[in-house]
């Protein structure tokens, strides 16, 4: 049995919630939340937290770096791997906003796409 304390991000209340997990890592109880959204967020956050990753990467022949994002949130534990993979990226203009610049980043099944056009 373990407990984790997390802050809810759904609204400015920022409820501090205590999540109890059993030895199998399953959520047993959530306390401290004010609404159902908090409970749902707590479940997601302790079992499979995900985050959007945004970054900039250099493009050959462009002064300004290209802004990119993961098309969907990726597992939180993969953020730094994703950044490392982006550092290896060699891109050439032109690139259109929405275009995939790195498919299936770090085996997440999620593409990294450009968020602006260059060239």
């Amino acid at each position, binding site marked *: 049995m373990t407990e984790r304390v997390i*802050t809810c*991000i759904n*609204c400015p209340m920022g409820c501090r919630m205590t999540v109890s997990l059993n030895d199998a890592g399953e959520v047993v109880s959530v306390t401290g939340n004010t609404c159902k959204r908090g409970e749902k967020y707590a479940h997601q956050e302790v079992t499979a937290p995900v985050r959007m990753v945004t970054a900039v990467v250099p493009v050959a022949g462009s002064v300004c*770096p290209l*802004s990119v*994002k993961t098309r969907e949130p990726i597992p939180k534990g993969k*953020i730094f791997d994703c950044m490392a993979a982006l550092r290896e990226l060699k891109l050439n203009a032109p690139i259109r906003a929405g275009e995939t610049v790195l498919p299936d980043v770090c085996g997440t099944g999620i593409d990294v796409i450009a968020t602006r056009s260059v060239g």
Partner: protein
Amino acid sequence: MDKIIQKDLVIIGGGPAGLAAGIAAREAGVEDLVILEREHQAGGILRQCIHNGFGLHRYGEELTGPEYAARDIARAEELGLDIRCDTTVLSVDGDRRVTCVSKADGLTVYQAGAVVLAMGCRERPRGALGTPGTRCAGIYTAGAAQKFVNLEGLMPGKRVVILGSGDIGLIMARRMTLQGAKVLACVELMPFSSGLNRNIVQCLHDYDIPLYLSHTVTDIRGRERLEGVTVMRVGPDRKPIPGTEIEFDCDTLLLSVGLIPENELSQRAGVALTPATSGAVVDDDLQTSVPGVFACGNVLHVHDLVDFVSDESFRAGRAAAAFLRGETPTGETVEVRDGEGVRGTVPQRLRPGRDVTLMFRPAAVYQNASAVVESDGVELARKRALVFTPGEMVALPVKAEKLAGVHAPITVRMEAAKHD
């Protein structure tokens, strides 16, 4: 004297506010308009805000800044709007004469039928804080650092302390960490952060960056380059408490200590400003004290969400179009005042007869409370919420029928929960 170009509408600023005002004005029939933008591209601050979270209200999506801006720019292009980039406005006068300069056109003077002020805001700099210490390199506003990293591909430093926990500071804590820097601390003078919980969790907690509430930077050391800062706890009077010094070895200090509407042009035009918002005093058409001069977006009052900037600026564009058609309502205006626990209500006056949305910030955190609009003891509107915080602007709609017959000043105030 230079040749004067007649123009129905001149919009100053090509960020989200100026773009929305231009789009709305053109859609309302204004053919002859120009948007003047000092940067080399339209889009304003959104260009450097590469993180996501923009557009949830307007589009139901969480776009990045460049994506949000691109939608307005695409619409502006579709409508054939004339956006003059690399153009700096030097002055606006009370007769709506706009003087600007650019490399391409030199000095240009427009005589405008109407003007929309959409210059946005700028960051409070180090000089405004009075922090002691040396004048070394390595101290940046968070937004300047954001521009270096996201638009220029440059890293301002390796070991970072952030003063202020506004959203830009929090966003930069994450950005600097992801780009390889070590963020040692985020230091906040107040006992609470003005940033969104979401940003505190996803920008600080995720990367184990400590947030020091009720602390401030009391010394800055370094000869050429910043070498370290001293952080101290502050008491309820916000004065440092001796003996609480914490030393940080850092080469970079980022300041995220507030935004100020950029109103130098407005002042020279004779536009009346209010210290409550540092922006113009406007009516419910967003018209300033100078007839035909409108203001919207962060130059009017600093917003939290670009969605609300766009919404306000669409209204300013439509109001400017109505002014050009001679359809601006006239008649008596009623003053709107900040009551107990309320700061910076916009608009500051209105003409009863139409639906209006009042926007303001609570002065403190209120739980389980109401915001109340009243005039002469009569309640006109009320909004209840589990929580109101200074970090989140409140939008409170008031119905036209409630305003009918109102002559006395209108007051907006917070009402704490009734305890049993």
